[in-house]
């Protein structure tokens, strides 16, 4: 862990203007609103949040697909917004992207061979036989064997799991150093999910990738990453190692989340879950102060609804944005 950080996100804001015909701007959706974190090469981190929490927007900002309104994404010490087009192309070759819907992520009119060849052709890698070699290796790595059978296939001929493996093969064929996986298994069947996640983990370990696993599912994150960042309403409310976070969740939202996640247990049927009332706020008009305060069981009037909590670090490496930890105490 002595490595230099590979990726640094510094006070990142991504806003979307809502356009309304004839009425000018109808407002700004603050999809990511002041997010900071640092990740090292070879690390596997999960960004956990509900839909609409801004986690996918964060992923796209890291991938350079969104333009931040404020703040920076810094890769290897180079801020993305300062990259020239040529350097941007280099940056894109340094990252892989795995999307949620494997079928949608593959052009339906291209064969597997062409799909995998596209990044190589675009980045002018190797000669034709060299590219073919790379494509075959990539397919072998994701265990789509015999390779011959899969090369000429079109996406619709593959099962969901196989499609997602093609996506993974494509995302790693440029041998990137950063892999962003946005809900890579949420559209797959339970029995296949683990397979895909194991594959991602294997790729991450084999190539010493920085893996950012975006998910709503804390339980899978637990098994496949070392660090978890919890996102709520466009902000990161807590970040810690998996053990710290699960054994000792600090933020009231994280606690509620953990409590709400069911396990296959017949006891469940007999008990009611303790769920915080209400729903996540609108990102058009987020609440003042801490964004969780209207739902928070530990709400402190005059503090939580007034000032936004900064990140506190009550334990080493365990950051939490909550006024409860202003003085650094740790409840357990």
């Amino acid at each position, binding site marked *: 862990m002595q490595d230099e950080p590979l990726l640094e996100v510094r006070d990142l804001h991504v806003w979307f203007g809502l356009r309304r015909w004839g009425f000018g701007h109808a407002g700004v959706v603050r999809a990511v609103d002041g997010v900071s974190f640092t990740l090292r090469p070879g690390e596997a981190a999960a960004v956990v949040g509900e839909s609409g929490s801004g986690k996918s927007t964060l992923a796209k900002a890291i991938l350079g697909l969104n333009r931040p309104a404020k703040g920076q994404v810094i890769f290897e010490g180079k801020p993305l917004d300062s990259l020239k087009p040529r350097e941007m192309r280099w940056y*894109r070759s340094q990252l892989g*992207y795995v999307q949620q819907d494997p079928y*949608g*992520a593959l*052009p339906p*009119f291209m064969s597997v061979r062409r799909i995998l060849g596209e990044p190589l052709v*675009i980045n002018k890698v190797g000669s034709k036989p060299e590219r073919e070699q790379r494509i075959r290796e990539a397919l072998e790595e994701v265990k789509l064997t015999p390779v011959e059978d899969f090369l000429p296939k079109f996406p619709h001929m593959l099962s969901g799991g196989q499609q997602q493996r093609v996506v993974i093969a494509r995302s790693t064929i440029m041998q990137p150093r950063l892999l962003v996986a946005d809900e890579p298994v949420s559209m797959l069947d339970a029995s296949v999910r683990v397979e895909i996640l194991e594959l991602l983990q294997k790729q991450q370990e084999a190539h010493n990738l920085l893996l950012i696993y975006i998910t709503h599912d804390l339980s899978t994150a637990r098994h496949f990453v070392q660090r978890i960042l919890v996102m709520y309403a466009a902000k990161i409310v807590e970040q810690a190692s998996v053990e710290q976070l699960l054994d000792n969740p600090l933020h009231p939202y994280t606690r509620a989340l953990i409590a709400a996640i069911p396990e296959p247990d017949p006891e469940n049927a007999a008990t009611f879950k303790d769920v915080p009332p209400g729903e996540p706020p609108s990102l058009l008009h987020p609440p003042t102060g801490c964004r969780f305060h209207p739902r928070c069981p530990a709400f402190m009037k005059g503090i939580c609804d007034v000032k936004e909590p900064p990140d506190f670090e009550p334990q080493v490496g365990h950051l939490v944005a909550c006024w409860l930890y202003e003085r650094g105490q740790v409840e357990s």
Partner: protein
Amino acid sequence: MMTALWELRRYPSALVGLALILTLTGVAIYGVIAIPYNEALRLWRGGGDIWIEHPRNAQPEWVNLFPGNNLPKTIILSSREGGTKRVQVESGELKSVQISLGFDYRYDDFPSELNLFFDPKFKERPPHVSLFWLTPDGRRLTLGDRSVGPSERYAVSLDQRLARRLDGNPPEVGLFADPAAPTLQPLKGEYTLLAEGLLFEKGADLDVRLVVYGQVHGLAGTDHLRRDITVALLWGTAVALAFGLLAAVGSSICTLIIAAIGVWYGGWADASIQRVTELNMILPALPILILVGTLYSRSIWVILGIVILLGIFSASIKVYRAIFLQVRESPYIEASRAYGAGNLRIILLYMVPRVIPVLVPGFVTLIPAFVFLEASLAILGLGDPVLPTWGKVLNDAQQNGALYKGYYYWVLGPAVLLMITGLGFAMIGLSMDRIFNPRLREL
């Protein structure tokens, strides 16, 4: 895509449509091979005596298949072949030549015209000929004497004096009429034309050709200029298919690419494409084409270009735009951006191919629309000046009052072909629509 096309075999209507289109294509290919381009132009321009042996406004031969019809075909007899020719030396330079052109006439109606063509060889003194008409019942009618100049022609049908001798009937009727019959009807049997000539020079010679024009000719009949309409139908098929296909391909692909560009870049590019489209949708296309045709050029290639240009900014650009707006948001486009694909690559290799399956059925039905447009222009007199096309046949028919005079076949050929084209492509297009839009399949 290929599997989708293979699916077509499950739809009988598609198979019928395909059969129709293949037949048309076969006809077009046959036409172009059998009658090369220059030959087609020469034939259609007419001129000279290319069509002189064809009857005027003859019906197609197949009308004889209908019961009760036994209309005459054209009979051509020549002293060079078929007829008999005897040359006798009378004295010195003087020779007599006796040509007998006999034929068996077994039709129920009269020929439409009679012409005699002379082909004499002489230096100074043209041969002299006496003509006689022998009927099956043994009558011998004198058709007159004449001195035969170079490429002399005796238009028997136009001989007013002869007509007066034949009870006022036109010669082609009077010569064949049965005098015993109460009404005018042809006498069947052996007719002979006798030409007794005198040659006055050494080396002089005389040949005679008799053309008894029928009332039927070929597959499609002939027009007012004796041209065989089949030529125009064959070549018209090729021109129509080529025009329809090129216009459809050209406008569809351009529309697709322009729609994709508008959607991808958005902003003013999109807005200006939209405005141009709206403007173009308001402006009527036909008058523009008529203006171009009258003021600039009626060449089919110029018209094709204008049609494509007008077709690009058509309502379909709005349809494609709606689809592209969805495609633009697809994850795979996002992925391609993430691995560094450039704008042009995304538009041409990622967006456009996605929409082609949607386009194909519409594209197939677009072809006949352009075929009809070309035909309409030709009917309005704006057809290509040199090429024989369906539309021009219709135009000729209309100009010469074909329907008023009962020349239905003149309109029938091109009209049927136009309908077959429309039907064939529509049948394929509708079946394709079912395949490419599976939601329609169960309905």
